């Protein structure tokens, strides 16, 4: 059985092959509690985006549109190179351009970050999703949206620490980068990585990508970027899309990349204690009511009550109340 491909540039297998990512490879499935453990463990993969090598050419964006056959709108220019202006159901990845004057060197730096799903090991989107099987995670780390199961509630948007998923106004389903799961399943690397002219995007096993990142970081250190580093945030259990950043001490410089992303505590509370306490409270109350209804003594109107009422109406009738 062929495991995940090692690099995006390697040519795809020419022999027909069966898909590599099946139901049996799921390690998480949204709104599904008893997921049978996968029969095998695929090698974790990762896409490494070396921001220091990226030239902002948007070939990755174009490749993503072509491969996924999306149709981003033709917008307008609002004084930036970031186009379209935001991720959308038709644009799963976006180059975000930031002009920053480095106070240490007084040099301008044009920080260009490829935004898109990070494929978190602990995905907030999946955690939030109420619909069984709308979001799945494969044992190689890919987090994928299964559109036919999606109800369009947008909880994934709130669950995601990176503001990634977008709900289509046309079909009301959530969309985001799939890490080209359909390509990876067939032994190919992601379309964006394949298109990237400078190999700022590389793809392979997560271990290989980390090693590659080490080399890149050394190179950056030698060029005066003392704080260069790998962005693989532990707050979400690490990610299967990682960045090499020249200023890894300040990820927020890169168009507000979270410095230390975690699934928001609000989301944790909402999907955690609220659910259990809520279900318990509702269940207990309902059960209590039913039990009390069956075993307790109902509050019945007594015969005397009727008589009192009757006599009150009749007896008091002609007199005092006339005043």
């Amino acid at each position, binding site marked *: 059985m062929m495991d995940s491909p090692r690099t995006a540039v390697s040519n795809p297998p020419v022999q027909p092959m069966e898909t590599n990512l099946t139901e049996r490879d799921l390690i998480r499935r949204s*709104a*599904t*509690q008893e997921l049978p453990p996968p029969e095998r463990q695929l090698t974790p993969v990762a896409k490494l985006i070396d921001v220091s090598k990226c030239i902002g050419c948007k070939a990755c964006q174009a490749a993503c549109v072509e491969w996924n056959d999306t149709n981003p709108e033709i917008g307008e220019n609002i004084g930036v190179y970031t186009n379209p202006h935001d991720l959308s159901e038709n644009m799963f990845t976006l180059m975000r351009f930031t002009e920053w004057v480095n106070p240490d060197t007084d040099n301008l730096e044009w920080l260009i970050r490829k935004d898109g799903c990070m494929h978190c090991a602990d995905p907030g989107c999946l955690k939030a999703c*109420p*619909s*069984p099987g709308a979001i799945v995670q494969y044992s190689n780390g890919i987090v994928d949206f299964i559109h036919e*199961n*999606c*109800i*369009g*509630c*947008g*909880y994934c*948007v*709130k669950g995601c620490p990176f*503001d990634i998923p977008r*709900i289509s*106004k046309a079909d*009301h389903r959530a969309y985001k980068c799939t890490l080209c799961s359909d390509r990876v399943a067939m032994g190919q690397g992601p379309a964006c990585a394949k298109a990237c002219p400078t190999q700022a995007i590389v793809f392979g096993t997560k271990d290989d990508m980390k090693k590659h990142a080490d080399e890149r970081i050394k190179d950056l250190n030698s060029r005066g970027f003392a704080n260069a580093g790998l962005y693989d945030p532990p707050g979400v259990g690490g990610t299967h899309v990682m960045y090499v950043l020249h200023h890894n001490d300040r990820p927020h410089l890169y168009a507000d990349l979270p410095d230390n992303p975690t699934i*928001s505590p*609000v*989301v944790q*509370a*909402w999907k955690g204690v*609220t*659910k259990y*306490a*809520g*279900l318990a*409270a*509702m269940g207990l*109350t*309902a059960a209590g*009511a039913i039990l*009390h*209804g069956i075993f*307790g*003594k*109902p*509050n*019945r*109107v*007594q*015969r*005397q*009550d*009727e*008589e*009192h*009422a*009757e006599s*009150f*109406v009749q007896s*008091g*009738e*002609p007199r005092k*109340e*006339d005043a």
Partner: protein
Amino acid sequence: MSEEVKKDPEDSIDVGPPITVNRYGPGKRLNHWITATSLILLLLSGLSMFHPWLFFLTALFGGGQNTRMLHPWIGVVLFFSFFIFFFQLWRLNLLNRDDVQWTAQIGDLVRGNEEKLPELGKYNAGQKLIFWGMTFFILILIATGITIWDQYFLEYTAISTKRVALLFHSLAAVLIILLFILHVYAAIWTRGTLRAMTRGTVTGGWAWRHHRKWFKELAGRRRSDPAEYK
């Protein structure tokens, strides 16, 4: 005499025999049941998204997509219908001194010693609590619901706000459901209550037992100026 029922569908006594008391006219009843239906649909649709155990409930609405789409609209119906109801009832649900004592002696109610409780107007403190509770949570639900209604209101708030809204929506939903259970159970436990919302009437004994002040007042008013009712 019996025509009076038609002329004043509410807050009037039908001498009978047996004595019946008109508690809600058809308008209010319709209003109530629209409200009740909405809330039940909301509860079912909301809970289907609340926990995977309950996801099967989406089938009631024609699948998850429809559930997601319908829920907020039903919420809007609930909101309007409840507040139409609200403006008719709110005065009578203002708390008074009797409510305090009633609440303090709630144990007597449960034990069946209702006689020991003060005489009450049209609503007891429990009902009032439910009334204001519903009001409060529906306000929260509509506010938070709109905040998370991304299909139309995506741009207006930040995700961080939406997260809080979602949490509060869930919490409010849970609490309103608790209230709802309480309300329905109270209506069932207190035998003879349901017909107030079905037929619009209660028996004289029911009124005497639970809302004596209200009953006495109606009885008095009935005699005060018959011509009024002509």
